[in-house]
């Protein structure tokens, strides 16, 4: 581990200013469950680590404008156990509980989960300089890629590992980004950007910006949602493929629907074609299969991850049926 300085700003403005003014490579620390590991293993280096823990107002879940605001420093366990969140957004609770282990949920934060770095095993090897780390090659493309992307890879085939992001996007969440010039709000779906935009990061945060909170709109009448996570072992596992479905159901059909997949693309991956194929039709296994067929036309599996195509079908079917 290289030496680094640590800063503990006491206000959001101070935090933004520190990030904006920092001439050294600065890294934000929320729960630290992953960042510390990255620093120790040498995957990441930082001249300055900015600890968000002392900034007031970033932790907690509050009712706001009919919906819920979830502070970036809210611990995952607090989200999983929040009564209002559990009542209004069962798929969000499901996702929070499916993530990592109790120890990691106690320490890890919602903001950290949404801004986490990829688990690609080449990226995580301190000896490998891949495209994401400023190199020229994606080693996964022709290498070992059973956990890698089947959608949206563009010179980098990581998958975005978050469980919370697909669900929050399916629920129409908005991200509040703190900047030195004040807050700005973006739909969470637009918060993420694939390798074609900037291969070295997974979201649109510019220098000096940080995720402050997310706001989830209140449930609409007839809103249904579900989250299905397919993994290899029972716990402490990232999704091989996950599916978040949310929408409004009337007479056995979705009048509105969002389908967002995890574990399949460098960003949470919206299956627009599946949404279109499902919207307005009475839900049946045949209809879901057709929707999956449509969406999977865009899939580009590599040598070792073709099985994810089958998992997308299974996850989609299960999530849609669970939601309805």
């Amino acid at each position, binding site marked *: 581990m290289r030496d680094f300085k640590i800063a503990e700003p006491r206000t959001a403005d101070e935090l933004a200013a520190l990030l904006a003014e920092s001439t050294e490579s600065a890294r934000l620390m929320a729960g630290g469950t992953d960042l510390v590991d990255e620093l120790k293993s040498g995957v990441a280096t930082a001249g300055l680590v900015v600890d968000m823990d002392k900034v007031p107002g970033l932790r907690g879940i509050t009712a706001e404008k009919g919906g819920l605001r979830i502070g970036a420093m809210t611990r995952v366990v607090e989200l999983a156990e929040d009564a209002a969140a559990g009542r209004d957004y069962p798929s969000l609770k499901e996702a929070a509980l499916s993530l990592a282990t109790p120890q990691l949920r106690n320490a890890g934060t919602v903001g950290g989960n949404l801004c986490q770095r990829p688990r690609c095993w080449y990226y995580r090897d301190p000896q490998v300089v891949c495209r994401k780390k400023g190199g020229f090659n994606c080693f996964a493309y022709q290498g070992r890629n059973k956990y890698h992307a089947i959608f949206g890879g563009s010179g980098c085939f990581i998958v975005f590992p978050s469980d919370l992001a697909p669900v929050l996007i399916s629920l129409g969440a908005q991200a509040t980004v703190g900047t030195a010039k004040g807050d700005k709000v973006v739909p969470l779906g637009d918060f993420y950007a694939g390798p074609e935009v900037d291969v070295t990061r997974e979201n649109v945060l510019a220098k000096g910006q940080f995720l402050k909170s997310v706001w989830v709109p209140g449930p609409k009448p007839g809103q249904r949602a579900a989250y299905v996570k397919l993994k290899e072992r029972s716990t402490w596992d990232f999704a091989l493929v996950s599916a978040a479905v949310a929408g409004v159901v009337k007479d056995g059909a979705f009048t509105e629907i969002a389908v967002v997949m995890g574990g399949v693309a460098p960003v949470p991956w919206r299956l627009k074609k599946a949404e279109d194929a499902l919207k307005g039709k009475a839900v049946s296994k045949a209809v879901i299969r057709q929707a999956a067929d449509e969406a999977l036309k865009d899939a580009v599996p590599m040598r070792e991850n073709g*099985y994810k195509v089958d998992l997308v079908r299974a996850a989609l079917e299960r999530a849609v049926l669970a939601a309805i």
Partner: protein
Amino acid sequence: MNSKDYIAEARGGTTRQAAKPKPQAQAQAAAAQPAAPAKAPEYKYIGKPTARVDGREIVTGRAKYTHDIKLRGMLIGKILRSPYAAAEIVSIDLAPALALPGVMAALKLAEGKVRYAGQQVAAVAAVDERTAEKALGLVKVEYKTLPSVVDWERARDAAAPQVRDDRPNVGKLNEYARGDVEKGFGEADVIIEHTYRTGFEVHNPTETHGSVAAWDSDHLTVYDSTQNIHGVRDGLARAMKVPAANITVIKNYMGGGFGSKLGANDYTVAAANLARQAGRPVKVLLSRRDNAVCVGYRPSSSQTYKIGAKKDGTLTALQLTNMASGGVGDGDDVAEPAVDIYRCPSCKVFEETVYTNTGASRAMRAPGHTQGAFGLEGAMDELAAALDMDPLELRRRNYSTKNLGDTGMPYSSKGLDKCYELGAKAIGWERRNRRPGEGGGTGPLRRGIGVATSIWFGAGVPGTLADIVLYPDGSVEVICGTQDIGCGTRTHMAVVAAETLGLEPKDITVKLGNSDYPWAPASGGSLTTPSVAPAIRDAALKAVERLKAVAAARLKIEAGDIVMADRKFASKSDPAKAAPFADVYRDLRRETVFHGERGAMPMDQFAFNTFGAHFAEVEVDVETGRIRVLKYAAAQDSGQIVSRLTAESQVVGGITQGLSAGIYEERVMDDATGNPVNPNLRDYKIATALDIPEITVLFADVFDPRINNLSVKGLGEPARVPSSAAIANAVYNAIGVHVREIPMTPKRVLEALKRKEAAS
């Protein structure tokens, strides 16, 4: 590795007969081994559940592991390892590292070629970890990289880079033949032929490898995380050119080894050399990454079985070809189950190993047998399906009471039939699908039940020594130079001594884990209990004889009239005549040592083996390829069980490891970087507590006085051998297609289902 070589190595080659007498203690003349009883005696503690005598130490964190050792003035040593799978070392410059304040020693550890990523190149010792780490970064190594190959299938190509200078990439490992297989296949009504593959399983003990070396004048003391204190001492003596008498190796507590800690390691030698150079103790601990690259793993296998049988299931011919890979070292010979478990008149084996630019494999919990059981038992189940027979019936029909593969001698005891019976009853064998995949199930879930068999060695090592020391205050010490690698050796030592002396296990002070103590073999090969327990029993019986004579004089009765129980000596004919134990000890007036030895067994007349049958019930999701093990029953023939709780725990561990290797664990190598992509516990997935089913552990309790004076056989490896295989066969029974490759990841299960779909 050949499993017999492994056993021979664990046995420590020639055994030493004499132990150092304890100073100022009266040495007891070695008596002839008393004859074993004709049937199992009624025991008070042996075979009964006894809480671990060191359980409190362990769970309260007071037990000191090698990682916990802190000596005065101790330095931290770190090892620089090659990032390249093949390279020529042009130069190593230690000067910049030595110039860093706080760095006290540095060594070059390689010259010429490095042949795998993770190979030692240089080492430093510094006042603390941060300084040592920094110094490592300052060592200047100039490499000239060479072409390498880490993919064993590619390594077979003629165009692949040659891994070892002394031989081609493919070499013969093992060849065996009996009878005429061509004739056998000619007589067969049914012949099946399939290939089964096993991946690279990393030992990953909780406690990573490590050593602390300290010199006191010309005496070297090493605290080592090892399964073999005597072996490490002898290996260090050779490597350091120091007399073995000047080396002491200590290991008190250990967090697992599974075969990866059986000898003296290069990092231990480095620690000793750094310590000598610095004139201060040095501690070298390996990292989790190191565990994946430089201290071994279970080699892969690709086993093709061709088996012929008559309509009634009688085997006529069995042919096995195997391609193993163990990196720069040899792969495992996997043939033992195939040549020995079933009574097949003809059998032919040909095995090769493929060299690659990865670290050498090491023995891992039943080397060869674990892979072989997966292949053979999978093939037996596919044969049973082809014959439309109950897989258990097929196994029973070909039951062998002789060691056909090697000596042809009868097994001294074989309780496998009893294991089949006990396990089948516990799992509810009659509930299985009559034919594989026939059962159906709700939605995408399919259930199935499978069985697999094990054979292993584990009779123990004659010549193992142990002492019992009686002190004048009535306290008792049992001393043996064995090591408790986490399995409960301390507990069984206390149980045997207490049982024999009429005391309670808690009355016994257990000493082990020091190479100055009487010789015992490596804790590998399932040798520990059947070696150590009989030696202690022998010492304790000698103590009993002596004490009874002393007590007889005191009580004025015949020694033959004395019963020792409940911490008392009492007359059988007149229970009023009794004396407390402590009083009789006092009559000895001084501490007294009784030497015990594990006696010989009639190896020229009988084969001595352990057996077991495992049964698993699984549920498979045919849409996601996910396997859940619902229920498990394991029945073991390990002779007399000494300490029931730790024995059960050992079996649960073997099943857990087999489940984990069967479904999750696999080191993935990358040819482009020459390194594993998952040298950690995140992507190298090990089963969690939530993945482990309800487990029933059963013991066949076979009595065999020919083995040793307690009828004890080993258990550690037998518990692991058939566990992946039983689960794979249950999956076959559930979904109607054998996955034929472990780990059975969702990817492989889905691919197998596609194979089935394409075939129908």
